[in-house]
């Protein structure tokens, strides 16, 4: 009986942790006067089915600001900003500083703008991140496509397989769309770019914002805390009426934004001597043989699964990397794929070294494993003695030879008769 109770408790705790590992509390800001909430129900319902707790707020309804924080406690995990027109209303509800702070504190953001509505809050916020959406009124045109009225983009323009791995020949309907210019930043994740024959201009006045593949229609951003932001340049992309074309991509995009996929963690980063002795037992010294291993897991939306890749690198660095080794798979269990460097010899240099795996791939969450350890030099009695080095046998035998010869010399010198007189006479005669 006791056992079954504890088992039940265990299962309950497991369930609680499983739930809490998935971020769920989400604030949805919308503007009923621009785009009614009913147009987006497919994806919102889909989120709710996956245990997201959605909280809706019409930005025209109340005049006070939304509390994103209770003191230091972040109240929401995600924010969805559906297309809004009233820039001032949005700014009053979610001031840009609040939004930046929210994003810095690991909150995820999904936002949309469209040629008809580019609220200042979102534009300035995106500009901070190096994303420059086209201003109000700028529309992406592609007169070479089969449907010039609304923008349709094929899956060839998908740029990141970690966000969505599109099938050949898929078409995404974006309707009336704006495009963004991007800064050159490591954190930006370009997701969908505009066709080669497209351009963005303002009411045919020839004042274009982007041309060709320079423009981006869907852009992600992942900050150093692994919080994610996705900006979609079109109102129509997530609308119910386009769900036949966009559904798969949009669902994966939402999953990526709210960290349900492409989330990687590293576990059990350990290093030891080759024979398994720990650093704590026997500290490393120069030229020791050591081995480093680390495990990687990937969140697939429900559980952690082994993350399999061949581009992991390990670094042993003291200011500069002394080693940069590609990790090889060594084994796995149900959750984790383990990687190892194999055995390697520590450099002939003592000092404080960092054992580091810094895994940063665009589209995947980044992980850093760092262990700082001192590597000592050899003690004075740890160098090999001369007779252990075969080269020095020549010199050693020379020294012994000289000494033996010297003893022999001294003995014979003493025993030979003195002949000083003869020498002098010889000198005189000379």
């Amino acid at each position, binding site marked *: 009986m006791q056992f079954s109770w504890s088992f039940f408790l265990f299962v309950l705790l497991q369930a609680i942790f499983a739930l809490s590992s998935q971020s769920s509390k989400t604030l949805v800001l919308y503007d009923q006067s621009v785009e009614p909430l009913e147009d987006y129900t497919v994806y919102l319902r889909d989120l709710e089915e996956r245990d997201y707790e959605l909280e809706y707020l019409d930005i025209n309804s109340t005049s006070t600001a939304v509390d994103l924080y209770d003191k230091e406690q972040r109240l929401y995990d995600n924010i969805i900003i559906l297309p809004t027109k009233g820039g001032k209303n949005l700014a009053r509800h979610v001031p840009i500083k609040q939004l930046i702070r929210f994003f810095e504190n690991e909150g995820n953001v999904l936002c949309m703008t469209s040629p008809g509505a580019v609220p200042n809050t979102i534009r300035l916020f995106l500009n901070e991140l190096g994303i420059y959406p086209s201003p109000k009124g700028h529309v992406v045109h592609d007169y070479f496509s089969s449907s010039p009225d609304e923008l349709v983009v094929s899956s060839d323009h998908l740029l990141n397989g970690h966000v969505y791995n599109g099938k050949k020949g898929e078409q995404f309907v974006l309707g009336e769309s704006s495009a963004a210019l991007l800064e050159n930043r490591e954190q930006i994740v370009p997701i969908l770019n505009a066709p080669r024959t497209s351009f963005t201009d303002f009411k045919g006045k020839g004042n274009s914002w982007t041309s060709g593949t320079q423009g981006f229609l869907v852009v992600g951003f992942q900050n150093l805390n692994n919080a994610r932001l996705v900006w979609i340049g079109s109102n129509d992309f997530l609308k119910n009426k386009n769900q036949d074309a966009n559904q798969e991509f949009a669902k994966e995009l939402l999953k990526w934004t709210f960290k349900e996929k492409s989330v990687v963690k590293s576990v059990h980063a350990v290093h030891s001597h080759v024979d398994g002795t720990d650093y704590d037992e026997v500290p490393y010294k120069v030229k020791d043989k050591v081995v480093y291993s680390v495990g990687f897991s990937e969140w697939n939306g429900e559980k952690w699964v082994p993350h399999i890749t061949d581009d992991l690198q390990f670094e042993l660095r003291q200011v500069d990397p002394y080693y940069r080794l590609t990790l090889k798979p060594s084994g796995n269990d149900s959750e984790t794929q383990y990687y190892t460097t194999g055995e390697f010899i520590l450099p002939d240099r003592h000092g404080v070294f960092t054992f580091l795996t810094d895994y940063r791939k665009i589209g995947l969450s980044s992980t850093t494993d760092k262990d700082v350890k001192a590597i000592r030099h050899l003690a004075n009695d740890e160098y090999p003695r001369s007779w252990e*080095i075969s*080269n020095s046998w020549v010199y*050693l035998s*020379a020294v012994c030879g*000289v*000494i033996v010869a*010297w003893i022999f010399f001294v003995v014979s010198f003493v025993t030979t008769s003195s*002949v*000083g007189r003869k*020498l002098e006479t010889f000198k005189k005669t000379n």
Partner: protein
Amino acid sequence: MAKTSKASAPKVTSTSFAVLRDFKEAFETSKKAYFAQIDNNPKLKLIDTFCFFLVLLGIIQFTFIILIRDNFPFNAFLSGFIICVGQFVLLMSLRLQLCNTFPGISKSRAFGEFIVASLILHFVCLHFIN
């Protein structure tokens, strides 16, 4: 031009021959004197044999280090080479004093000093090699 060169060529050879002959003569005399000296004094002969042995050892070690193109146990090489050089120098100073005693220092005292200096040298080299 040709004349002068013709005239000068035999001249040069004749002088060089003369120099060579003089040198040969001098070399022969000194060789004779030297062998006479060591034949008369077996102790000097002993010293010179030892010196020759040391030079040989030094050359062997140096050739070795050139052949393997690596001076890895450099301290070992230094100590092996220096014991040869040092012993050679000590022997030379002993030899000088045997041939021509320094004022105030007897031959036996010179020999005693030689032994002490050699022992110090061996001690240092044996420790330096390890």
